[in-house]
């Protein structure tokens, strides 16, 4: 069965650079969530999209932005990277209203040096 695909799997960037993470949800899923999990931390909700519109916003820094495209894939853009942005970034998708929970991707590990 198709799963949530995230790319790249690993990314190394220098401070003040920009990074773009991509998420391809399960086919027909209409909702995408982004989470950030720092070392030894629980996942923190960043932002979500439903039918290509932002639906909820968590602890996402102003330096980050995200969008969901017409094919439902989503991109998380991160600018002016800081060392503290080093984390595992998870994307999850769901089909709103089904109550089937969320399916997570394997994550993108971002290392800022």
């Amino acid at each position, binding site marked *: 069965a198709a799963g949530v695909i995230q790319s790249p799997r690993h990314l190394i960037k220098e401070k003040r650079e920009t990074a773009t993470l991509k998420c391809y949800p399960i086919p027909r899923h209409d909702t995408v969530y982004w989470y950030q999990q720092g070392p030894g931390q*629980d*996942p923190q*909700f960043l932002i979500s*999209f439903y039918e290509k519109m932002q639906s909820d916003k968590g602890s996402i820094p102003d330096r980050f932005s995200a969008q969901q495209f017409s094919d439902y894939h989503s991109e998380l853009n991160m600018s002016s990277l800081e060392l503290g942005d080093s984390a595992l970034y*998870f994307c999850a998708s769901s089909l709103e209203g089904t*109550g*089937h929970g969320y399916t*997570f991707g394997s994550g993108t590990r971002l290392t800022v040096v």
Partner: protein
Amino acid sequence: QKEVEQDPGPLSVPEGAIVSLNCTYSNSAFQYFMWYRQYSRKGPELLMYTYSSGNKEDGRFTAQVDKSSKYISLFIRDSQPSDSATYLCAGGGGGGADGLTFGKGTHLIIQP
């Protein structure tokens, strides 16, 4: 106070034992709850979800929700070494595409 509290462990039990993992929450608006299992360096995978108070069983896993005391539990029967992982509880609520609020996760070790 975090909205979802969870003992980080580690919790170490012998193979075959019944495991009890617990979370408390403070947000009365939560309408549904989920348990995720996360192996090291992997994304969390959904184990169980529940909407209301009571029990839900799926194979060796039973999720229990007590909304009156804001307490959720996950029981694992006949535990296996492959169950060794971090277990995250999460609560969500309201309409629309809300994000989840996670606990910090409990590190479970099943000793062969």
